[in-house]
């Protein structure tokens, strides 16, 4: 391995280790809930074992040495010598953090907390039942690591062995049952066993206490030759054992083919090359020829054929699995791909438009084909960027655990819909808001265990984190069963902080949403985790930036539910293209409910107040013409696009509704970045620019203006 390959290996190890550490954390937390689950213990052990093994291989000796100590303890746990306690989980979590620090320090060169490491190791060793063996563990450290590496390299590829097992006639004499040995071999891997009866004497000569049968075993296993030797460990002096590797898993030859029958027989020494060559002039199948000529016994040929078949199968299978494996790609490459697809969608729109204008059936045909392909390409590209939200969820398990420890609460976190997929960027940006919400739930929502008991609730509170698809959106719900929000208290505080006037008439839901206003905090005292009044408005801001919405619902005494509604992706949305004057606008289709006409009579009927009666519901509307100061001639029948946002319906008056539009979102330049009411722009098929409206901000903007008047 040269320098750069080693570096690549190191990178791969770091990535792998990070995944393993995450897995380790999840498993540990699960283990705390179900301390006796051997499956989880096995997982914890495996994770550490792999970190140790590969760590040593890539020169992370400190990691390997440190992990070894932790692994030793879990080996004992696995053997049932140590039981899982909270202390052990705490220590192992700390050890996990230290392992991460060690791996990171190799990158940054920062010193790690040696004292802490020694502390962890010392505490772990105290848990070991047999104190006498400590010296041994330390001195045998490198040895064990080397063995681990060796085991790993053996496990990395399955090797196929040919085992010839010829028991001596007296093998039964010491109580051995050869069949059991064959059964044991079968447990090592995929295997083919061929029995040879050629040594069987005539009935008269048979001694019932003697063994006349012998076997050829073709075994594909990842356990290595030692494991096969171990099977025959008790019988090595009462039988002949010959183990040869005939197919090494690591090197993949181009074809799934294996040696020809003749080659196998020659290699085994069952037939000589010369005999074979003489035969090859004739046209029968080789196996038959050999038997006919009496060169080998039928069962020998049978065994060789079985070997051939077995190895071919193994190779075929390996080819299949190799081709089905996945590859890692840096996420920037995906970002570039998404951008390119965005451009392509824009160009395709232009092509469609031109084709229709030219009215050339041939070009229209091509443009339709391109449209279909572009659509597929877009969906596929988007789906590549989708990640299950579960990885974020598991991070929060740790957060909940640590927080509830700090705050003296008992909190259980439940998660649902971890497999729900969201755009990678959305998931990344979702982290902070979720942290704030969960912190608030635990700090403000969940009562102390004693209080909960008094209230007749279970001692431990529950935070339920769930995710589900809903149309083009994903809903993320954070529900707690704590004390809930008290509307009056929030209202008083809001009045006190000058957020609302004392005579404001607000529904409970509107009051609840005040907790997302900047500078609002109801906690009686500021704790280390929440109560500074910055958390919740940051949540709102972050979710807004993701084009999402926040909804809050609460029942006093029963808990609070916060629902985040997020778009599936950030790059391309379905929009409704509308026109006012010469300007094009796009409204996000997700929030559009319906389009109706607005005639001059309608306007007269409402005496110029900007409201319209839609099926007995009074809906206010906003004229885009007025907001964007478009002074072209008005038309007689205008259109109202009715949208729904945060539970209230607002109409937007436009001249024409053009139709649905695949909108590739382009951000506005730095000059227009801070214009309220616009979330971006898109390029239409004819090259003109359409502004994408931010409905919610637009409504707030108008509300504010009217309030000032």
């Amino acid at each position, binding site marked *: 391995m040269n320098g750069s390959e080693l570096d690549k290996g190191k990178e791969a190890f770091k990535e792998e280790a990070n995944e393993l550490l995450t897995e380790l954390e999840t498993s540990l937390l699960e283990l705390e809930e179900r301390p006796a689950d051997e499956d989880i213990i096995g997982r914890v052990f495996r994770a550490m074992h792999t970190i140790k093994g590969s760590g040593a291989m890539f020169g992370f000796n400190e990691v390997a040495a440190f992990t070894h100590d932790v692994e030793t303890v879990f080996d004992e746990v696995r053997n049932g010598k140590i039981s899982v306690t909270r202390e052990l989980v705490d220590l192992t979590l700390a050890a996990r953090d230290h392992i991460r620090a060690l791996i990171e320090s190799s990158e940054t060169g920062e010193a790690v907390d040696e004292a802490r490491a020694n502390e962890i190791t010392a505490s772990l060793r105290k848990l070991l039942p047999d104190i006498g063996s400590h010296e041994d563990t330390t001195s045998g450290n490198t040895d064990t690591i080397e063995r681990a590496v060796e085991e790993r390299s053996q496990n990395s590829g399955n090797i196929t062995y040919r085992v010839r097992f010829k028991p001596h006639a007296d093998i039964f*004499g010491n*109580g051995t049952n050869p069949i059991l040995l064959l059964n044991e071999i079968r447990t090592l891997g995929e295997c083919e066993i061929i029995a040879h009866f050629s040594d069987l004497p005539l009935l008269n000569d048979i001694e019932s206490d003697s063994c006349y049968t012998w076997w050829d075993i073709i075994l594909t296993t990842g356990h290595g030759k030692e494991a096969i030797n171990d099977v025959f460990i008790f019988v090595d002096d009462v039988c002949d054992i010959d183990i040869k590797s005939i197919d090494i898993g690591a090197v993949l030859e181009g074809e799934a083919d294996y040696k020809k029958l003749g080659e196998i027989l020659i290699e085994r020494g069952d037939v000589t090359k010369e005999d074979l060559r003489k035969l090859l002039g004739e046209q029968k199948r080789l196996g038959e020829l050999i038997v006919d000529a009496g060169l080998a016994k039928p069962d020998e040929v049978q065994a060789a054929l079985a070997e051939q078949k077995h190895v071919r199968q193994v190779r075929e299978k390996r080819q299949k699995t190799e081709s089905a494996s996945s590859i890692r790609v840096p996420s920037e490459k995906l970002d570039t791909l998404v951008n390119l697809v965005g451009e392509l969608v824009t160009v395709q729109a232009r092509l469609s438009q031109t084709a229709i204008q030219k009215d050339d059936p041939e070009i229209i045909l091509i443009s339709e084909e391109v449209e279909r392909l572009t659509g597929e390409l877009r969906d596929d590209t988007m789906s590549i960027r989708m990640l299950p939200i579960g990885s974020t969820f598991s991070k929060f398990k740790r957060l909940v655990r640590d927080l509830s420890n700090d705050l003296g609460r008992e909190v259980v976190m439940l998660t649902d819909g971890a497999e729900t997929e969201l755009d990678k960027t959305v998931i990344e940006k979702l982290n902070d808001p979720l942290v704030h919400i969960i912190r608030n739930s635990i700090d403000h929502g969940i009562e102390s265990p004693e209080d909960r008991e008094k209230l007749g609730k279970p001692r431990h509170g529950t935070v339920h984190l769930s995710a589900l698809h809903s149309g083009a959106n994903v809903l993320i719900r954070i529900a707690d069963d704590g004390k809930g929000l008290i509307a009056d208290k929030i209202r008083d505080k809001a009045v006190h902080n000058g957020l609302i006037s004392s005579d404001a008439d607000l529904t409970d839901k509107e009051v609840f949403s005040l907790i997302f206003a900047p500078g609002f905090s109801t906690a009686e005292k500021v704790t280390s985790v929440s109560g500074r009044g910055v958390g919740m408005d940051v949540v709102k801001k972050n979710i807004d930036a993701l084009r999402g919405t926040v909804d809050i619902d609460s029942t006093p005494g029963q808990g609070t539910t916060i629902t985040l509604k997020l778009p599936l992706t950030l790059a391309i949305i379905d929009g409704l293209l509308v026109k006012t004057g010469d300007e094009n606008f796009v409204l996000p289709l997700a929030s559009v409910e319906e389009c109706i006409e607005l005639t001059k009579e309608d306007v007269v009927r409402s005496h110029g107040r900007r409201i319209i009666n839609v099926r007995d519901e009074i809906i206010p509307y906003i004229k885009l013409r007025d907001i964007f100061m478009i002074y072209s001639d008005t038309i007689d029948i205008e259109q109202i696009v009715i949208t729904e946002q945060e539970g209230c319906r607002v109409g937007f008056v436009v001249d024409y509704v053009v139709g649905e539009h695949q909108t590739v979102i382009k951000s506005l330049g730095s000059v227009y970045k801070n214009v309220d009411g616009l979330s971006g722009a898109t390029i239409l098929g004819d090259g003109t620019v359409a502004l994408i409206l931010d409905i919610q901000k637009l409504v707030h903007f108008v509300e504010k203006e009217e309030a000032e008047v």
Partner: protein
Amino acid sequence: MGKTIMTVDDSASVRQMVSFTLKGAGYEVVEAVDGKDALSKLGGSPVQMIITDLNMPNLDGIGLIKEVRTNASYKFVPIIMLTTESQDSKKQEGKSAGATGWIVKPFKPDQLLAVVKKVLG
């Protein structure tokens, strides 16, 4: 009914450990304190396997194995001997006497069960 295994050892603690482990895995266990005791108990209920120590008073492990192998009904019964690493020659002696296999002391319950499974199925 589970298979019956006889454990022969003069040390009560070893017998206890073997017995406990095997019973936990669903085997019936007959305990014997030395070779002589073992032989007399073999006459009783049938035994499918024997685990014996080598150093014992009255009749030692090697002697026991030889005796057992002369008994027609126990000719093919698996016999496992408990040895220590320093007793390599003893191991050889035991094998030629007809022992099926061995376990090196000290051993873990898992190892014991693995060997039992290996020779008894």
